[in-house]
């Protein structure tokens, strides 16, 4: 017999199952993804290229700056680099550039630096405020000389999830933003391993997973297609997180 209760519970269950089914439908997912494009265009429309993320004072900093994701790449190569205090580590800058670079940590440390106390927002919902010091990415890109076809900057990392290497990418609007730096220090100390030693990206107008840690290589590309899963980042590829993480 169908009671009102089974009707309500059954109806709600059918609705929920319907939502799950929609979540799995490629056409519906593409429709929802349309929201990401709309959000990005709307934010870019109302945000000037140099609109800054808020910078805080030392008194506003989180007592503990937690780490997230990989806390240590743990590969043999990385262990060797870490054991040598990253003396043998090199950052490669290549792809669509006129002058590919290979830079040591010392060389990067001697470049002009920017220090900023900013808020790190994880996609999960928490925030931590820390003090970052590093070289503006724009300086490195100017030194390497981007070719006209370059549209994206890809960050290849030393950490892996299973068989897949972590990577991220941003477009040139964020790559040349004054607060976009490659940080080698957190809270006045050399970047600790859980936070991405020896070098990590800070792209302050986007969420935490865009801030690639354990940088090994920076590649300028004209397209994200054909690279790993093609969506421009590890979490974008494996779990369908947004490539534009400004919200």
């Amino acid at each position: 017999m169908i009671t009102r209760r089974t009707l309500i519970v059954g109806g709600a269950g059918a609705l929920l199952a319907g939502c799950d089914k929609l979540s799995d439908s490629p056409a519906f997912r593409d429709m929802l993804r349309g929201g990401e494009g709309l959000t990005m265009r709307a934010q870019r429309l109302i945000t000037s290229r140099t609109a800054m993320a808020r910078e805080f004072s030392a008194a506003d900093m989180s007592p503990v700056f937690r780490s997230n994701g990989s806390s240590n790449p743990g590969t043999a190569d990385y262990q060797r680099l870490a054991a040598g205090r990253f003396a043998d580590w090199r950052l490669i800058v290549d792809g669509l550039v006129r002058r590919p670079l290979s830079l040591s940590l010392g060389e990067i440390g001697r470049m002009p630096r920017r220090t900023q106390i900013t808020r790190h927002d994880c996609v999960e919902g928490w925030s931590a405020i820390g003090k970052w010091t590093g070289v503006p990415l724009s300086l490195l890109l100017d030194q390497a000389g981007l070719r006209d076809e370059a549209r994206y900057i890809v960050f290849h990392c030393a950490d892996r999830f299973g068989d897949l290497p972590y990577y991220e990418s941003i477009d040139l609007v964020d790559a040349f933003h004054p607060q976009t730096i490659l940080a080698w220090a957190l809270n006045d100390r050399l970047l600790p391993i859980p936070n991405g030693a020896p070098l990590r990206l800070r792209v302050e107008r986007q969420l935490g997973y865009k801030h690639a840690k354990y940088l090994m290589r920076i590649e300028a590309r004209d397209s994200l297609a054909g690279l790993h899963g093609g969506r421009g980042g590890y979490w974008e590829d494996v779990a369908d997180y947004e490539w534009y993480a400004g919200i």
Partner: protein
Amino acid sequence: MEEREDSQAAVAPEIVTRHRLSTRIWHWLNALTVFVMLMSGLMIFNAHPRLYWGDYGANADHAWLEIGSTREAGYLRIGSLTVPTTGLLGHRTDWSGTVRRYAFPGWATIPSAYNLAAARRWHLAFAWVLAIGLIAYLTIILINRHWRGLLPHRTELKPRHLWREVADHARLRFAKGAAALHYNTLQKLSYAGIVFLVLPVVILTGLTMSPGMNAAWPWLLDLFGGRQSARSIHFICAFLLVGFILVHLIMVALTGPLKQIGAMITGRQQLEQPE
């Protein structure tokens, strides 16, 4: 004479206009959108079921609200008050006998299985529908002056009048006939509170959590006292909406659900003769 009038009234009852087209479209659009927003929002909350005040807040910092679990039990902690919530929040054994230790249970979230990325896709796409719908509705009621029907008159806000309405509601004595065509003060306060306060605040606090919007409109952070405060206020607004919906559904059920739902679909209602 009197008899004839009576029989005429029985044959041709008076049909009155109850809800404008804009109100009806917005109502049913929201009936869908708000549920998607609430349920996908609960899934997003599950990714970090702790709330803070101020600019920052993470695991090492003090949370004013937390939904958590031990191996055997779930709990909700607000300030220093801890309420056991096993079976509902934090710790629940599902239909297959598997223990789930997420803050909100699968039957309350979109999607039902833990998936932050999918919940964000739902939430951030439907947020556009919610925001555009609210802006369109506010614009329309400003032009057609319907907004005045949502704001209580000064005399309606006198304690004696308010108390009278509260007492009538408590006895389930509701206005009938022509008197029910106008919102009473409690209705006006609830609708105005939702339309002019809770919905705008839920949208603005949502935007305050966006690092991109923080750069575009830094005043948002000052308005709500930081990103984590905005997240807390966002969550409180969501539960004010849940409360509103519950009371709304109960009132519809108590005052002739078919008549009320019909009026919200067709816009028209047969006028009830006062007893």
